[in-house]
């Protein structure tokens, strides 16, 4: 692939990605104070956050194919997530919760440990 066509390819991806980010700001610039926009601004972020959690944990499907089957990283993922929730409810220190949960997950995955 020539340098020019590679640059064209990257520019296409960059423009398409930026378009999805900038369109609301351009199209709805005058509507920022509209009650509907304020409503979305208040309730959409928490909903998105929860959806990102569901998406991140999507590999955990214990009942797929009619049997207990969570894949190699399924159970460690759930246990590490519970560790994060527990640590956070207990200490409410974001960094501690994240490091604690990630360390637990890495340990389980690298040792190949799963219930």
């Amino acid at each position, binding site marked *: *692939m020539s340098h020019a066509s*590679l640059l064209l*390819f*990257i*520019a*296409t*991806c*960059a*423009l*398409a*990605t*930026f*378009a*999805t*980010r*900038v*369109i*609301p700001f351009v199209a709805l610039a005058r*509507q*920022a*104070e509209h*009650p*509907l*926009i304020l*409503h*979305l*601004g208040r*309730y*959409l*972020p*928490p*909903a*998105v*956050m*929860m*959806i*990102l*959690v*569901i*998406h*991140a*944990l*999507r590999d955990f499907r214990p009942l797929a194919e009619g049997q207990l089957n969570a894949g190699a*990283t399924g159970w*460690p*993922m759930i246990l*590490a*997530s519970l560790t*994060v929730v527990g640590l*956070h*409810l207990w200490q409410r220190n*974001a*960094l501690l*919760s*994240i490091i604690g*949960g*990630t360390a637990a*997950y*890495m340990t389980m995955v*690298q040792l190949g440990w799963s219930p």
Partner: protein
Amino acid sequence: MSSLNAWRAAGTLTMPVMFGYLPLGAAFGILAIEVGVPGWAALLMSLAIYAGAGQFLAVALLAAGAGLVEVAVATLMLNSRHLFYGLSLLKRFKGAGWRKPYMIFSLTDETYSLLTALPPERARDHALAFRIGLLNQTWWVLGSLVGALIGSTLEFDSRGIEFALTALFIVLTLEQARRLRQALPFVIALATGGGALLLLPDRHLLMGAIGAASLVLLAQYRLQTPDQPKESRP
């Protein structure tokens, strides 16, 4: 607050993203080199595109020899969830001045999460939002650079470190719940997320769930808002 302290404060906030972006960026760099993308192009992608899943897709399409139209459509589809991010940040980004174009450009899932989790008194701190966006991209670019340079010769066993991003989303969900003290958005998320999980293929899951959640919020707004004052005026 001095400039250095301001950067340090933003840096602390982005640390969880750093734990996720360095290894994921490195994974992207390694993959790009493996499919034959030159190092400079991999780095340019992290600088100019700056979208995690989008860049993995781009490399896959590049390897498959896809056409430009195909690439544009696939990228738009994959990243269309960003449309809804912008919707909920319209008011917050108002008056951000010269920082605004970059703040919009750098709006990844993780940056959006950090920004919307800021306490109300810092929600309109545009300098802070700008620093968070820039630092997050710095972690991503550094990761890509390391991946492209040393590739698969990396000795450190980092398997599983990408869970840091999952942990970040969990923590931010808990923080959002603590602040809002309302079940509504979480119930909507469980319903649309669960529905998307059952009904949609993996690549459309995020977009489907976030789009559906926005529609439900729109319907709920319509239902609870009385009709135009014209009829109700005495």
